[in-house]
């Protein structure tokens, strides 16, 4: 994806270091931005009366829909942080669904989860062999793995599932549920608070309520993996070495880091995370494997990762955005998305004001006009067509990226072939 570069740093112009690099957003700023967004949503909810947009079940559905995407994205993050592009996430998710259900229906859901992870790891291992050892273009390998995983699971499904109760060539027998939990008092309290419909407070309650109501253990694990990933990659020696392989493998090698080893580990872990996402689909979201269950989530996960600027927190926001809009869509899409139009109009208004302050008057006027059009759409209709609803998550992603993307910063050696002993 990027032209090969050499380790020759000597020639980097050093007078212009602060080319649009986008320093890490500090936590307070990030929290402020999130709080601001929530406040806006809250206003919209109160104006439109679309209570559905922030209630507890909305959020818990959003969380559930976000998990596989987030896990796939995390998988992508691990691989790319070590310099390997993993477009084979889709295939690794598929392997996860199949292995998860296959082991799950026979030996229980937790075994299934484990098997799903192993299935994904196998996909990762193959990707590692092909890209790291044979130095094949990472995209080719990923595409091939997607095809291979699809073919293999389809080939194996009839052999493994047909003849078992509830199983068929396309579906596995049912897997026992994994169990979920609701934090007793807290969940109800938050739900009550949410139901009050107060400005902001109720919306926060809805968001938090979604995190403590009817949450599968696997969801909890998945959510925990986000900070865990951050901690491992940014706060441990292991993580530092792994990231150094994605930034400048030759430098890492020169300090005695076994680059191959870390790349292998990263890609295998990447596959394992995607496999876990697959197992989530075939054990928690649905109690069985179904052909076509993954339906593009691997690609969306990859998009969420890029959206999140190769950082776990950003990725979580990206996955959450997909989960949330998808959940909006499934839970009474037309009216909810209609309410989002108002949100969009408001955001555009805010943007226009900001632009005006920065003295970009032409941009401000254009933004204002677009905002007015969106508002007119909102005011003039009661519902939006299903198709608009379905496209919402993707349009939002594009818009958000368009507004923020020039700060993207991917690992420097991402996708580049590396060979030991070639450095210097």
């Amino acid at each position, binding site marked *: 994806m990027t032209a090969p570069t050499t380790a020759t740093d000597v020639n980097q112009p050093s007078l212009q270091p602060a*080319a649009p690099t986008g320093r890490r957003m500090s936590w307070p700023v990030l929290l402020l931005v999130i709080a601001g967004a929530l406040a806006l949503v809250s206003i919209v909810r109160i104006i439109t009366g679309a209570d559905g947009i922030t209630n507890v079940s909305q959020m818990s559905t959003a969380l559930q829909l976000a998990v596989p995407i987030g896990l796939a994205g995390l998988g992508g993050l691990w691989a790319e942080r070590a310099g390997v592009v993993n477009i084979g996430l889709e295939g690794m998710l598929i392997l996860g669904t199949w292995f998860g259900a296959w082991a799950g229906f026979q030996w229980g859901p937790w075994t299934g989860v484990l098997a799903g992870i192993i299935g994904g790891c196998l996909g990762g291992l193959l990707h590692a062999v092909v890209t790291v050892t044979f130095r094949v273009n990472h995209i080719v390998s990923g595409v091939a793995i997607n095809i291979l995983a699809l073919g293999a699971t389809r080939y194996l499904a009839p052999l493994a599932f047909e003849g078992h109760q509830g199983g068929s060539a396309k579906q596995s027998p049912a897997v026992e549920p994994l169990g979920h939990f609701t934090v007793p008092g807290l969940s109800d309290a938050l739900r009550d608070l949410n139901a009050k419909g107060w400005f902001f407070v109720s919306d926060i309650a809805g968001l938090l309520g979604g995190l403590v109501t009817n949450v599968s253990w696997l969801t909890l694990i998945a959510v925990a993996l986000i900070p865990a990933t951050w901690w491992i990659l940014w706060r441990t020696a292991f993580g530092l070495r792994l990231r150094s392989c994605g930034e400048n493998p030759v430098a890492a090698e020169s300090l*005695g880091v076994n680059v191959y080893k870390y790349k292998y580990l990263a890609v295998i872990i990447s596959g394992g995370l995607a496999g876990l996402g697959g197992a989530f689909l075939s054990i928690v979201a649905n109690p069985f494997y179904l052909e076509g269950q993954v339906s593009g989530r691997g690609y969306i996960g990859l998009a969420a990762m890029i959206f999140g600027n190769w950082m776990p927190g950003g990725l979580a926001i990206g996955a959450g955005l997909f989960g949330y809009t998808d959940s909006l869509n499934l839970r009474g899409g037309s009216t909810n998305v209609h309410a989002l139009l108002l949100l969009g109009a408001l955001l555009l208004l805010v943007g226009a004001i900001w632009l005006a302050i920065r003295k970009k008057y032409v941009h401000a006027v254009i933004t204002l006009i677009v905002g007015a059009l969106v508002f007119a759409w909102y005011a003039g209709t009661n519902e939006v067509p299903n198709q608009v609803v379905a496209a919402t998550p993707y349009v939002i992603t594009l818009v958000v990226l368009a507004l923020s993307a020039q700060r993207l910063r991917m690992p420097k050696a991402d996708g580049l072939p590396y060979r030991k002993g070639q450095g210097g």
Partner: protein
Amino acid sequence: MTAVELAGITKRFPGVVANHDIHLTVRKGTVHALVGENGAGKSTLMKILYGMQKPDEGTIAIHGETVSFSSPADAIARGIGMVHQHFMLADNLTVLENVVLGSEKLYGIGAKARRRIKELSERYGLGIRPDLLVEELGVAARQRVEILKVLYRGATTLILDEPTAVLVPQEVDALFDNLRELKAEGLSVIFISHKLGEILSVADDITVIRRGTTVGTAVPAETTSRQLAEMMVGSELPTPETAESTVTDRAVITVDTLRLAAPGGKALLDDISFTIHAGEILGIAGVEGNGQTELVDALIGLRAADSGTIRLADEEITGWATRKRREEGIGYIPEDRHRHGLLLEAPLWENRILGHVTEKPNAKGFWLDPKAAQEDTRRIVREYDVRTPGIDVTAASLSGGNQQKLIVGREMSHRPRFLIASHPTRGVDVGAQAAIWDHIRQARREGLAVLLISADLDELIGLSDTLRVIYDGRLVADADPATVTPEELGTAMTGAATGHLEHEETPETPADARKAGADTPGTAADAPESPEDEAR
């Protein structure tokens, strides 16, 4: 007591014997210099000592004990540290992360490591801030990070592969002070440089290698740089001296109050004005990262100036695209040939087209003319002595010097009116260097105007008709190449001197002058705190 003993080292690469029966003995507590032409095999030898490459034959002994390294980790464990010719730093990681990488066991990766780094930095006066991204550092600061990396690991044997190539004399002196201090503490240093004066001033022993094998050793006190050079190449050292002046009064390129700002608003180039006449070579001296890259980019059209004008003869070209500028006679020898001058994976004849795709003989109107381009490539290969078995091999398979000759040949073939030559001989061996200088001089005689940017001050002084010094994006000083010394230039390059540099008479040769310069108050020793790094 020997710190390192390499015996009978042989290393073969496909088609090349990089090292052949090399012997090298480093005494403990000394600075041992390793010299040789480009491609002589110095870096390879050091990589072998550092465990990055395995020798095909030969033995390595550290402190008298024979060892065999399978990775740098083994070498580091033996107390060997290496600062590579090309920096080995990850831009997106912080200084701290770069330093602790691979040796996390020593002090962890957190507060303890930070303390240790600060401690070392203070002790050796390195002035390093652990939490900056490496990307934000200047060249000299990066160099110091590299040295810190080695010290952090508690190395007892340091390998410095061309550490001074990108430093100004004052920075070099500061580095040498550090080396002497390390030496006093009992550390051994292996030092590689092409600058023979430096070597004579700092080394205790010298080993010379030529074409992959040791050709001799020398004692600095008894050797002159000329003798050293002759050992290296087996012939006389060519010098980049300009013969008679060919400067005319016909202005070819006129730059007027050029300004270029970074996205944040900081000026990268400010108030740049100069004129280069036909037959004139204007040399720009400056520490890397002071705006040379931006200036070249602005001239070739890779970046648009924020204000100011550029004129080529009578036409204003400020708004022209790169392609148009090249078509109208601006030639370009980029500083980084791999990034800007070549398509490494493409055959030579396609590289001959690069940059001149719209011009004859490469194209006939809208269409490419591969036949003619190939024919012309053969001509360039012949006339510029590019060593290659054919024009269908990829550019990557040529050595750096030959790549450079191809680029020079390509640019000269289009008879430019104005040539931008950025480090035209960087990393090129003496033979090729002389050839490139000849070509530039020849074209100058025929009326070419040249902007020469080089880190090699001897080259700058020797080739230029006029000299300017760039500092922090401004042309702060000018000098007469006939009289100025590298030290005087160096002072201006750090921003310590401005205006017209008046020459103080020193009778010695440049190499000796440098030794003397090291003792001159005011020019030495303050380099570690040199403002251009700490400003960032």
